[in-house]
């Protein structure tokens, strides 16, 4: 608890640095990642992230110091090289893109690990801490390093906002952008450079192995909440920042914990929540919608049962017992009971002495469903030439979804008919 207070009061300047740095890098990579995601280049991001490791190690070997600017230059160089190599392989061999990405990723990362092991065994004392580039260490985000990363992150944000219109256009319709005379190749290079830069800002805190997740996950999660690209980018930035803070906090509380994996775990957690809970697109929303559909269908079917009994007895307002209604339907007693209660609460039926009776509006509603059912049957026989004994099952579903507009059109098309294909009366309302 003390840790929580100390951490979130930000009184310790080191914590301030770490938090500020994590937010900045996570948000900026999330924003760039949105475009990488929309251009369907998520895997490319992963390849770049892994490919910066040999660059970092080579830069250390050449300079012999852990000066962050040199390491960034090295990372940037090999990151870019990996992308050029992927494009070259795809253009000049029979190897397909996914294979090329897989090849380049593993070869570069393998080379990076070899270099790292070599450095660690060379006995050079200044190398300690270099291995934190693999999984990241937020605590390393201090002082001048932070300034360097902060500057890169801000450059990223500025470039994305300046080129927002162009990046969106190229992501949506590249050929159209070309036809307008936009420099599509340069814009592609720009996005690639931004991706590499975003990866580079993250290597200290998140590490090379998991940096791709920080690029892609927030954007993928944000996509669930909105259909507007501006909002998507903002939400992704917020999600990224949130996982940045949480990752930094956890690695503060448990100093032996690497930051990268925790950032990724929290951002994945956000993505999972989005996947389940987002309005409209989330699993729960779909589930709720499904259930609503099911209950509406169930209740409408019960109404139909009343109507059919009414047709038989030529009186729609006779009280019916549960047993009679159950005879007319394929649902269990429990469901029927629920259905009756729900219809009662809507004022379509009422209860008298353990029996149920349609109200005036209930009769109207029931008649409408029967009407839609029979109209659809007639449409299928007349317009699609389906045999009259084959149309019932179709109509059983369609009767629940026909809108008033389609209803009007159907009636108009069929010439306001009085009978369905089975010579049953189509109710007039």
């Amino acid at each position: 608890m003390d840790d929580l207070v100390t951490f979130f009061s930000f009184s310790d300047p080191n914590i301030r640095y770490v938090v500020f740095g994590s937010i900045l890098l996570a948000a900026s990579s999330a924003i760039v990642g949105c475009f990488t995601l929309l251009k369907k280049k998520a895997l490319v991001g992963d390849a770049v992230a892994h490919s910066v490791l040999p660059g970092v190690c080579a830069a250390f070997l050449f300079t012999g110091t852990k000066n962050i600017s040199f390491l960034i230059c090295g990372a940037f160089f090999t990151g870019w090289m990996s992308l050029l190599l992927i494009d070259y392989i795809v253009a000049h061999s029979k190897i397909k893109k996914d294979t090329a990405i897989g090849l380049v990723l593993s070869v570069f990362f393998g080379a990076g690990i070899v270099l790292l092991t070599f450095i660690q065994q060379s006995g050079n004392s200044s190398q300690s801490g270099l291995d934190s580039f693999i999984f990241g260490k937020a605590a390393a985000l201090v002082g001048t390093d932070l300034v360097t990363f902060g500057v890169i992150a801000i450059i990223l944000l500025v470039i994305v906002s300046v080129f927002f219109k162009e990046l969106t256009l190229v992501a949506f319709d590249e050929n159209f952008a070309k036809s307008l005379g936009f420099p599509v190749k340069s814009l592609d290079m720009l996005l690639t450079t931004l991706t590499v830069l975003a990866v580079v800002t993250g290597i200290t805190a998140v590490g090379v192995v998991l940096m791709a997740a920080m690029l892609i996950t927030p954007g993928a999660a944000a996509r669930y909440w909105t259909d507007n690209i501006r909002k998507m980018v903002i939400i992704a930035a917020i999600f990224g920042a949130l996982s940045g803070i949480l990752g930094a906090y956890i690695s503060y509380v448990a100093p032996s914990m690497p930051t990268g994996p925790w950032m990724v775990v929290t951002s994945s957690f956000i993505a999972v929540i989005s996947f389940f809970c987002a309005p409209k697109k989330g699993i729960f929303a779909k589930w709720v919608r499904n259930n609503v559909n099911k209950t509406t269908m169930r209740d409408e079917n019960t109404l139909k049962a009343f109507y059919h009994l009414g047709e038989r007895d030529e009186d729609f307002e006779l009280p019916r017992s549960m047993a009679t209604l159950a005879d007319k339907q394929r649902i269990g007693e429990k469901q029927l009971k629920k259905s009756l209660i729900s219809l009662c609460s809507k004022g379509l039926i009422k209860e008298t002495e353990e029996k149920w009776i349609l109200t005036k509006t209930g009769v109207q509603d029931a008649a409408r469903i029967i009407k839609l059912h029979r109209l659809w049957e007639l449409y299928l026989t007349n317009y699609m030439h389906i045999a009259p004994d084959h149309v019932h099952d179709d109509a059983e579903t369609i009767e629940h979804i026909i809108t008033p507009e389609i209803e009007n059109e159907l009636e108009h098309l069929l010439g306001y008919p009085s009978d369905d294909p089975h010579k049953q009366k189509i109710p007039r309302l």
Partner: protein
Amino acid sequence: MKEDIVDPVLEIHDLTVSYSRKPVLWDIDFSLPKGCIAGIIGPNGAGKSTLIKTIMGVIPSSSGYIKIFDQTLNAVRSRVSYVPQRESVDWDFPASVLDVVLMGRYGKLGLFKNTNKQDKRIALECLEKVGLQDYTKRQISQLSGGQQQRVFLARALAQEADLYLMDEPFAGVDAATEKAIIEILREMANKNKTIIVVHHDLQSVVNYFDWVILINMRLVASGPTQKVFNNKLIQEAYGGKLTLLTEIGNILEERQIPPREK
């Protein structure tokens, strides 16, 4: 069979286009008059889409030249509009109908500038022309195929161009939309705009187009519909596959030989 035009809107001179050294269009050569609706007709794999993509500079040519309004494409880009095939984009993209139509204004805006009220007004007008005024805020994945095609048409209209190149605007479109689209195209042609349409339904050619360009890897015919759209030439474009042309193309690809010596 080729009818040449004095002062053409579009002049294509000896154009060859290849994919990885394999020519898909051989020595295409024709010109087009102003204010016509022209159909590019040919079987699958004839290179219809390739032809208009090359005209728009989306794919490079290997030889020959293209002149639009007697100038190069770059000089007249703002007067030319391109409608890609509907399937060429991912309609699940996070954009609304209005967002997409506004993209038609980007060419006039150029880099770094954002759309203003005037652009928005024009975009809304174009949406009204195609009958989508009630759908401006709709996410584009929630549209039917016909509506998506009309969004593309509205985006092209927003470009306020003089020459339009459309790749299969009638593909996957219901009869009502097809009729609405052709009416809009006629109206545009009456205003002296020129429209080139990639089309593969032979039934409707006579009704839709006043100019026909028949191709099958090479130009078979180009001229007024009543002159060139006859059984003999259709037969030549659809039936007479020049197998030698394909074979030579395969060798060029295999041995990576450029179609011109220099």
